[in-house]
């Protein structure tokens, strides 16, 4: 492992530690976690008893260490509504969220990279204009509205695709498009500007001058070099996708972590909320560390920094 990766690993661990502090603090925002966790009609006596039982009278630092001890083992307490370990409930829903986020990312990459390349190679043609306008609209469109409009057209009017639930491929199409559109728009614009920049470099001109055909110039000389920022943004966009799953899953009744967390918030089931926030944030940190590993292969210069 290079010094660079060692440093990044250390930084990632620090970030995970910070994430655990924030997740711990969510419960302590109002100053009284006991009142928050009990139903609104709990008596003052109940609250006092619960507070002692849960150790909420201890100093905050002691409470945090206890929380951390549980957290490293994946123990965030029991769900107040289901009486099961909170983390177990969240983990059960994780595959559904990964399936949706993965499909969203696949759509985004499958559409955005070709669109961005064509836009850059045929700059200022009608193809470029159409793709730019679509990307601009895609970036301005709120996810939940897009989802509702897709349901309106494809489920309510045309009756082609189901509007809710998880099942076969037909269940995945609408939510995946909804979740992926914003990312598609962003990656399209990034690919286009990255390709334009690389295509004007000297080495591209040299390749063309010595008679290399246009396709290898675009694919080998340009795309390889333009791919570095794209790999970075894929890591960052994963955060957008995981966050966006909260909204998309709610609209399409998709049984994933996002929908579970929204329900948990309305049920005041905070152990589940904490588990979900912690799990998704950790996923993001781990994926971004892996992106950095990929990065050092793509760009040897980074290894020596």
């Amino acid at each position, binding site marked *: 492992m290079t010094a660079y990766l060692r440093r990044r690993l250390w*930084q990632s661990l*620090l*970030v*995970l530690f*910070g*994430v655990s502090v*924030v997740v711990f603090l*969510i*419960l302590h*925002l*109002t100053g009284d976690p006991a009142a*928050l966790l009990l139903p609104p009609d709990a008596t003052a006596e109940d609250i006092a008893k619960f507070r002692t039982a849960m150790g909420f009278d201890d100093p905050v630092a002691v409470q945090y260490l206890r929380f951390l001890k549980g957290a490293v083992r994946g123990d965030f307490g029991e769900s107040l509504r289901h009486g099961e370990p909170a983390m177990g409930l969240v983990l059960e829903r994780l595959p559904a969220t990964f399936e949706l986020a993965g499909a969203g990312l696949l759509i985004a990459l499958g559409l955005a990279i070709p669109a961005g390349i064509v836009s850059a190679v045929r700059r200022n043609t009608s193809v470029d204009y159409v793709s730019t306008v679509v990307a*601009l*609209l895609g*970036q*301005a*469109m*709120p*996810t*939940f*509205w897009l989802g*509702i*409009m897709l*349901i*309106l057209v494809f489920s*309510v009017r045309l009756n082609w695709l189901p509007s809710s639930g998880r099942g076969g491929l037909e269940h995945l199409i609408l939510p995946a498009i909804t979740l992926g559109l914003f990312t598609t728009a962003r990656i399209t614009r990034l690919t286009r500007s990255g390709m334009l920049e690389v295509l004007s470099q000297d080495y591209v001109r040299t390749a063309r001058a010595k008679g290399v055909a246009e396709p290898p110039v675009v694919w080998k000389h340009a795309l390889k070099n333009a791919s570095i920022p794209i790999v970075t943004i894929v890591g*960052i966009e994963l*955060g*957008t996708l*995981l*966050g*966006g*799953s*909260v*909204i998309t899953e*709610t*609209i399409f009744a998709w049984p994933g972590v*996002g929908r579970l*967390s*929204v329900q948990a*918030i*309305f049920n*005041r089931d*905070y152990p589940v*909320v*904490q588990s*979900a*926030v912690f799990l*998704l*944030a*950790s996923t*993001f*940190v781990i994926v971004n560390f892996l992106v950095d590993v990929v990065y050092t292969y793509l760009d040897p210069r980074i290894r020596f920094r």
Partner: protein
Amino acid sequence: MAALPPSVASEAVALATPPRSAAEREWVTLLRRLVRRRTALFGAIVVLGVLLAAALAPLVAPFDPLEQDIGQRLKEPGWQDAQGRVHPLGTDHLGRDILSRIVFGARIALVVGLAAVLISGVLGMLIGLLAGYFGGRVDDFLMRLADIQLAFPFILLAIAVIGVLGPSLRNIIIVIGVSSWVVYARVVRGEVLSIREREYVQAAIALGSQNWRVLRHHVLPNTFTPWLVVATLDMARVIVIESALSFLGLGVQPPTPTWGGMLADGRVYLSTAWWLATFPGLAILITVLGINLFGDGLRDTLDPRLKV
């Protein structure tokens, strides 16, 4: 006294109008360049329109946004009631005029947008200045904080915190404001790193200026342009987040009209009354598109090398 020849007269007039300062000239050039980009001009017009509609909502809206009329519920766009009053975008499930609710909804969107951007912008500016100027451990610490902030799926953290604190206009502004500083901090820090090495800053330090003085007089003013671009584009993001929170029922509570809240209501009537959910979403789309185009234009004019 003989009349002055015309050329001298016009020269006298020219002299009488006070000469424009350099800063003023710069603004005029900037505006001219912005206007020349048609997409930026379009964006500016949209933004101005939304601002005016929000500010003059009681004058612009044809109806009281809270006035219910069960007899007039779920009427389609262009519906004319018994008194001959037209509802251009139809009515909702309580017979309220949708256009009027959209116009008033712009107020919440813009207030949250402006206030949250101001909070996160100032916070991010301060953090970016400190990190970039002092470097070393200060920089390491602040940038790790930024990484921690970025690790959270934003909307999930926001709904968790608002779920605990309770939804209100103030809480929404604080939560969005406090957790959106990273972009500003990163951009300002990057600027400061290069400004710090410039000769005029080095000269100020060599002359014995105190740190805060160097920061305030020499560094801060030069970070304002990229900051402004980031703030403009971030405003669009905040408006989408506000409407997402309202959509989930964690925004400003009914009966106050919000775009996200209207969409959530409309979702229930999707199969019978498509206009309920369609128009508030279009309002968000057009507003966000306008801000984005204006912001892109601003960036291309002010600082084309900035990557946001």
